[in-house]
């Protein structure tokens, strides 16, 4: 194949009630083919109950060069984590 098909990002929901998670990417000519390819590449070991595919060029991504201004200011603000509460013993899964 001289020219590759466009790239698609694949999101798989492993169980009802859970969210779709990014599984990886693949090449396909269009959305329908992307869905079938995703089924074969990412759910062949019983990983999913639902698939989303999104053309990779539709995703706007943050620039790693901007990581400093985007993410570092949050690092020293521990008070934004809910770690200063006393949790009653009966509360689980927090």
């Amino acid at each position, binding site marked *: 194949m001289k020219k590759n098909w466009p790239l698609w990002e694949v999101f798989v929901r492993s169980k009802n009630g859970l969210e779709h998670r990014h599984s990886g990417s693949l090449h*396909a000519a269009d959305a329908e*083919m992307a869905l079938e390819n995703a089924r074969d590449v990412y759910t*062949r070991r019983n990983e999913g109950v639902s698939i989303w595919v999104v053309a990779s060029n539709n995703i706007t991504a943050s620039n790693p060069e901007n990581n400093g201004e985007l993410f570092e200011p949050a690092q020293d603000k521990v008070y934004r984590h809910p770690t200063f509460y006393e949790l009653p013993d009966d509360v689980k899964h927090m």
Partner: protein
Amino acid sequence: MKEYLYKYILGIADNSLILGQRLGELCGHGPSLEIDIACTNISLDLFGQSRSYYQYAATIKGGNTTEDDIAFLRKEREYLNLLLVEQPNRNFAHTMARQFLFDHFHLLLLKELEKSTDFTLSAIAKKSIKEVSYHARFSSDWIKRLGNGTAISHDKIQIAIDSLWTYTDELFHQTEADKTMVSEGIGVDVTKFKEIYLQKVSDIITEATLKTPETTWFQKGGKQGVHTEHLGYLLSDLQYMQRTYPNMEW
């Protein structure tokens, strides 16, 4: 009667085994990574189905016969698969056309086999229907894609369909074993859905902007064990390990 049931099962199982082997040849050689995985997935579905059938056939044959004996140690003339499924891959259009022409037949067959009075065959059919529904969807999509694609893909898929069409009439032939099993309520009367098959297949061919061949001369013989020259080569690959290292196990 037992002999007919045994042969009837092989007549179905061998299609899955041989087509599975053909698709397996593409492992690592598919036109793209995604299509490679798709074809080998289908191959594994088919191998899984043939195992279920052979396990059942082994119990009917009795003695020390195992599923592996049946799958790997028969002679060419003892394989009862359709000529269609043993045809070589040649190019991707041939692979998809072969798959497409078989899948729609396979699906109709399984939907009838599910109603069989034989509990085991009915159960295998029921399980396989979901797999084969996907196979038919996959191959039909590719027929439409290639037909509606470029001038080259259009020509290639038309040539592939034209050259494989000669093997389609055999899908609806009946052996003695078939007829006996139909009369027992175990087997499927394939002649009943020939028209449905032709309609379904030609609808998709038309949607793909292709022409349904009008050939009236057809090949036959696979169901009697008389094969095209391609099967021998396929079997020499398939049987290599069992012939070279007899009784080896995985």
